[in-house]
């Protein structure tokens, strides 16, 4: 595997990539390093993409529920809860 030291923005050295992938790995609860050890960059990126999609879908669902609640309810008194 050749590591390219190029100043082009799209290319990245293997070491840099690995360092960044490791950082991303800490964000993913299911890929915690202590359990799985080293995971391939592709797998981490895959999990990252799935995780983001899942979070966005969750916000979608919450938006739906909230919009239904808004239509039927009044919004006073919320500040007291925060």
């Amino acid at each position: 595997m050749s590591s390219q030291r190029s100043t082009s923005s799209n290319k990245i050295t293997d070491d840099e990539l690995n360092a960044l992938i490791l950082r991303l790995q800490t964000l993913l609860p299911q890929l915690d390093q202590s359990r799985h050890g080293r995971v391939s960059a592709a797998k981490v990126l895959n999990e990252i993409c799935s995780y983001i999609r899942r979070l966005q879908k969750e916000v979608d669902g919450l938006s739906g529920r909230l919009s239904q609640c808004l239509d039927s309810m009044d919004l006073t008194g919320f500040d007291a809860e925060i």
Partner: protein
Amino acid sequence: MKRWRTKREHQIYSSKLFQALCRSRRTSSSTSAKELHQTADRVLAITAKGTTRWSRAILAAPLTAGTNMKKHKKAKVTVHTRLRKPVVNREKKKLPVVERKLKALRRLVPGCRKLSCNNLLEETSDYIAALEMQVRAMTAITEFRARGEAQAPTDRLGSIGNM
């Protein structure tokens, strides 16, 4: 990135979102889920205070009621066709996979389509942390509303707003 985990940030976002929802409710009788999602995203971007590319991209994007009409500057199809060609060298297969994943990631995080790998991963980690907070805050608001339905609204402080 760590700031998205603080209670203070959570409170700031929750109250800003709440104000935005009140405002939108005054102007239109009903809010669709899509509009609400858009509002939630915009408030999230505002809370980021313009420090990240994804937040700036969200605020720069026009508000869409229906489907997104994106302007394609160049034909994307040709690029994909080229990538689909079978690669003879087995070693080369490894690199395109990572690049393909990076490309998918670029499409998911707003405003990062032409970003370098380094910056892309920075933006991604911030974006994920922000999304997690968004989910927490919206869940709290929704659960609060659900609790409110069980109790009588007159329990609350102040007068009931005009319908």
